[in-house]
């Protein structure tokens, strides 16, 4: 699985610009699915038709990552940026970014800032691609870029950019590999545009009209120095969501995951996350409502270019999903 995770995390795919990551995932799942579809907003749907008698289940992991978009190019060829998803200025400074056309840039900070004690706003940052004028700048307004950082593994811990949520994509892919028999019709959806507005999952769910939906995504942890209290810790197993900022997991879906974990003795944690949400927040509201839940991978430093997960948690998530999906 490590190779897949590395390949996925190192691929370009900010929100709205998912062509390359979609191609990589398509390559991974092509032989594992009965049918592949791309939705009008660019989500990739891989369908596994079960032996019958089960439910229609939507499994969602978003494939887009946070990034930045060129919003203005000044006379000297410096590029101002707009965020694609939740980008924090403090993790930007000194970072390198990569545009789709291969242009690399570094992020600088205005020296004449209004209040130097304040955390800089994104409007005080710029990208320097080494251009000397607007004319020779290889980037155009509207071009998107992602953060650049290589993958590494150290013991059980895996670190990369875009672990949010390529790790969820990796879990779905591995689940598809290991899932032998299922009564269910399962739509594995690699959703687009989660980080900006959750529209990929919402529209895919409308098309699928599932009986239930599960998002696989990252969640925060409370186990770092001076972190805010949160019951989830890295390495204590996948987390089964109870609530986040925008959703309360449907009790039946939540307990379905709990029961699967208990049957195969995979350690798990219950998750109450006070900030942030996942695709499940929108799938639950589609049409007349879809009972929705979320299986989370604990992750430190979410939305920084170095997001850390634990391999055992990832393995546990796959096992829970395979168990849940194999049974009625």
């Amino acid at each position: 699985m490590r190779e897949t995770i590395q390949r996925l995390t190192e691929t370009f795919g900010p929100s709205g610009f998912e062509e390359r990551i979609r191609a990589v995932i398509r390559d991974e799942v092509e032989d594992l699915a009965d049918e592949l579809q791309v939705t009008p907003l660019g989500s990739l749907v891989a369908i596994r038709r079960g032996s019958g008698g089960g439910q229609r289940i939507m499994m969602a992991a978003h494939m887009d990552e946070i990034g930045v978009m060129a919003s203005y190019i000044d006379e000297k060829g410096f590029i101002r940026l707009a965020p694609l998803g939740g980008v924090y200025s403090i993790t930007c400074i000194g970072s390198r970014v990569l545009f789709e056309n291969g242009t690399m840039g570094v992020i600088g900070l205005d020296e004449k800032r209004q209040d130097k004690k304040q955390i800089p706003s994104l409007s005080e940052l710029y990208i320097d691609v080494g251009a000397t004028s607007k004319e020779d700048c290889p980037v155009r307004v509207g071009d998107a870029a992602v953060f650049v950082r290589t993958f590494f593994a150290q013991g059980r811990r895996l670190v990369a950019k875009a672990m949010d949520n390529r790790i969820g994509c990796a879990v779905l892919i591995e689940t598809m590999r290991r899932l032998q028999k299922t009564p269910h019709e399962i739509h594995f959806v690699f959703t687009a545009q989660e980080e900006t507005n959750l529209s990929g999952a919402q529209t895919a769910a409308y098309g699928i009209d599932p009986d239930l939906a599960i998002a696989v995504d990252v969640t925060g942890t409370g186990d770092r120095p001076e972190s805010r209290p949160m019951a989830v810790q890295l390495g204590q197993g996948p987390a089964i969501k109870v609530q986040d900022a925008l959703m309360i997991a449907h009790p039946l879906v939540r307990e379905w995951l709990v029961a699967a974990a208990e049957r195969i003795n995979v350690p798990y944690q219950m998750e109450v996350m006070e900030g942030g949400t996942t695709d499940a927040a929108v799938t639950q509201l589609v049409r007349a409502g879809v009972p929705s839940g979320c299986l989370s991978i604990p992750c430190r430093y979410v939305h920084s270019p170095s997001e850390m997960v634990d391999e055992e948690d990832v393995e546990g998530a796959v096992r829970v999903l395979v168990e849940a999906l194999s049974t009625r």
Partner: protein
Amino acid sequence: METISLLRKLTELPGLSGHEQPVRQLLQELWSPLVDELSEDRLGSMIGLRQGSGAVPRPRLMLAAHMDEIGLRVAGIERGFLRLAEVGGIDRRVLPGLEVVVHGKRDLHGVIGMRPPHVIPHDQRDKPIPWAELFVDVGLPEAEVDEWVRVGDPISFYRQMVELQGGLVAGKAFDNRASVAAVTLALHALTRMSHAWDVVAVATVQEEVGLYGATTSAYHVAPDLAIAIDVTFARQAGLSDDRVFAIGEGPTIGIGPNFHPQVVEKLKSTADAHEIPYHVEPAPGRSGTDAWAIQVSREGVPTGLVSIPVRYMHQPVETAAVKDIERAGRLLAAFAAGLAADFRPGWEDEA
């Protein structure tokens, strides 16, 4: 149907957003004799259908009142003390000293304690207690707490309704069980009235966390017209007169982009005809009620809003006038009965 005992039953039950089962159960009992069909949608909203007398296919009037209430949730467990997360919008200043019920493997009564003021530095005493220092204490040994309680379990306020002077009542969850009561009274009244339209009473779930039950149940019901019933701010000490309404002077009728002008007019004329006092409540944008979600369901739904003034909203002492709740019920019943079989809200500039 006796309003005060109805309110007591409805408000004293726990029913946090996403955990409305106890209210659903009560409504099963209360609404069964009043409707022709009772069902639930996929997120758990309760749907009671009273068939109209008009020809099939009959237009449908949806009466939506949310049944969920705000509350708390176990965010973590430390040495038997329970850390808190909020469900819905909570002013944490009302929490210290409150009795609660933790809904774990079994219900546990508990209190929200605080450190004694004697040990708190003076400069901290004029600040609200931070979330990180608020715990529920169920008074059991650590091992027993771990046995009964799991991270994520809901915690409801424990509060018995009290009757105040002048026909006022106070307790928790008047937002929005007062409206569920009004809808129940309306259904009751309709058993003695003739109505051409189908009347679909819906007790929606998860309003407090994002109008979710209204979103899905409106799609499910696909009504031709909808009235949301919710609470609004009553005049109280410390509030300016802007957009607050006197308690005991009747419900309010919403006006603004969220509401179809002909629905507003019909609500007003119905109230006038039945001598039900009301105020007009302006909403220049988002009304913050189920009506906001219902209006944009599918191809759009002509929507109205009836609100019951309540003091101290989102606190365990929400206060309302029994009379206002009864008037809201009468208004809804009269509105439903007054809908002619061929009436459809339109636009005055249409041909």
